[in-house]
């Protein structure tokens, strides 16, 4: 797909470029926030679940929703603009697809968190599943782009907080629901026409996580050599019995 030569253009394309760049930046940060939300959500119901985690979830969620609202306005207004040049339209549609996928991920994660908080209650700390985790506060900091979070130490669970949280969450989920529906109604993006730019394989990021990779592979190998002889011994034993 040939790129539009943006230098030969009028103000329209220049501002369109800016709009595109803005949109891209917004979508990128939404992707980041959604990724962080997923990590936080994976801790819900586990032994690291706490008021703090719920706060972080809430803050991340709010940020995601604000971003989503902004992107929605931005992209809808541009895509409904019929005078948008073709090249930019394609880019916008790409952003649109990324945005709707983000929203879908966020929606599912929010629903799951709501569901889990129904099954495993924070108030009953014995029922929090022992998953072997220790905590993930830095993830929230990344999501909110803050150097660190002000950890408010609250030990007691205020009464009625959980039910209040549930109703807020349900509201928010239905909001996202409606946003997705609205989007589909207002702008018709033909998904089969959208072509991505990037490669099939994500490039390995530098400073790979070699330490934890090593831990995991040792995990496997630790038992493997011992299990092999055991198997053979049990085979022999069985043969002897027969």
């Amino acid at each position, binding site marked *: 797909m040939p790129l539009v030569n943006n230098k030969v253009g009028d103000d329209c394309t220049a501002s369109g470029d800016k709009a595109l760049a803005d949109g891209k930046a917004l979508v990128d940060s939404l992707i980041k926030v959604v990724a962080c939300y997923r990590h936080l959500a994976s801790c*819900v119901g586990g032994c690291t679940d706490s008021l703090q985690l719920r706060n972080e979830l809430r803050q991340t969620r709010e940020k995601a929703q604000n971003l989503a609202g902004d992107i929605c306005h931005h992209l809808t207004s541009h895509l409904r603009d019929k005078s948008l040049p073709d090249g930019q339209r394609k880019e916008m549609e790409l952003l649109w697809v990324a945005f709707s*996928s*983000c929203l879908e*991920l966020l929606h599912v994660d929010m629903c799951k968190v709501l569901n889990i908080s129904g099954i495993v209650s924070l108030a009953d700390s014995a029922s929090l599943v022992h998953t072997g985790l220790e905590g993930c506060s830095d993830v929230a900091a990344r999501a909110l782009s803050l150097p660190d979070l002000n950890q408010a130490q609250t030990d007691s669970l205020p009464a009625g907080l959980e039910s209040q949280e549930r109703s807020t969450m349900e509201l928010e989920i239905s909001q996202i629901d409606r946003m997705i529906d609205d989007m589909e109604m207002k702008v018709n993006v033909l998904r089969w026409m959208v072509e991505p730019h990037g490669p099939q394989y994500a490039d390995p*990021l530098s400073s790979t996580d070699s330490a934890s990779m090593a831990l*995991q592979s040792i995990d496997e190998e630790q038992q493997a050599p011992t299990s092999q002889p055991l198997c053979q011994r049990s085979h022999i034993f069985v043969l002897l019995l027969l």
Partner: protein
Amino acid sequence: MTIRNALRDHGQRYRPRMACLKKAEKVLLEMQDPCTGVKSQPQRLVITIIPHAITGEDIIAWLADRFQIDAQEARSFGSMLVALGYIYPLQDHKRLVIKPDASLYRFQTPYFWPTQQWPVEDTDYAIYLAKRNIRKKGILELHEQEQYNHLHKWMNHKWDFVVMQAKEQYRAAKERKKPDRVVFDCQERAYWVVHRPPPGTVSAMDYGLDRRTDPNTDEVTGESPHDLLVKYSATYSGHDPFLSKCLPSNPWLTDDTTYWTLNMSNVEIPTKMRVERWTFSFKELLSDPRGRDDFRLFLKKEFSGENLAFWEGCEDLKWGTAVAMREKAEQIYKTFLARGAPRWINIDGKTMEITVKGLKHPHRYVLDAAQTHIYMLMKKDSYGRYLKSPVFKETLKKAICPEEHKFKNRRPSLSPIIIRQQEQEQRAKMAANAPVDITQVMSKLSKQGKEMGPRHSK
């Protein structure tokens, strides 16, 4: 949760065999209780210690104790929990079974528990595979590689998003502490072994086809099919000709056709059992011709006979020949639906509008809406009054309860044992006073055989 996300779900909401998931969750929450659950130990990995590892033998012992079952069954149960994805093995992660030894397992975080409401998305799988590839290029196994290529093809439009999201999730993971990172990776890996099993393995998440309605509840009344079945069996067990006695007798057993004669459709006086069946449901009443007659009589007295007549007309249209359809529809319209019709039925304006519009191009089911409306009207209103009416009470009083068949006219048939005994006696007697000639003996025997012959057949 009342949030309906039909758009995202694509109508694939109901995965029926997963009703056991709720029960498995309860068991799991009990198992991980720090006081009464399975005892956990820390897992040592080089220099890190990760808590909350449990051994296979402990799991099996706990299950056997909790449910009072033997070790074999506990092992199967444990394997089921692993296969569903509630517990994952730390070593040999691709084999989802419980080994009754010191192999280690860990509880899966609730986020990765199998759920009934949300299907496992291919987008997530693509992101996961992309993430694995970021960590170490070429680590994907053959089937994963194939899946990745396949997803790249059909999910091509969101591939940029997939790659970006994978990168971001990877970066977010780096923010976590090292042991937590390892645990999360194990959790995610275990999740995908359950939901995208390697080829050649059977997945516990295989539930057959998706359903359009929730088989766990009756959409209208909210009862489970289990309850409905129990209710049905309890109500009808007395009326079942196999489970209980058929009065007077089952014609297939006694050759006595009184039962059929007494229960014919145009019989004047019905049996008590039959009348009792009419009280079970409105459908029973209508489907029994004698019951319908009784109901018709009642409605005549109430001057609302047109409802039943209309309903019968609709049935006739539905089940009748295609040739006669147009005529029948017109007839019904003239008789029941037109303004000032002789037997005008009372249906609401909306239904009337739809029906009249549909009658312009009549087909078999054009009167369905109106028929349903009238049916519900009769069911909710007239049926109740019928059951309390003098007509019904009269019928009930007159209903007969036939006596049980007495087996006095049973035709005696010779038992083959007796016949054989008689033959043997005959032979013994002949042997005693046997003629010398063998041919005479044979002829005598054959004669007797012929005599016996007619008596054998009944």
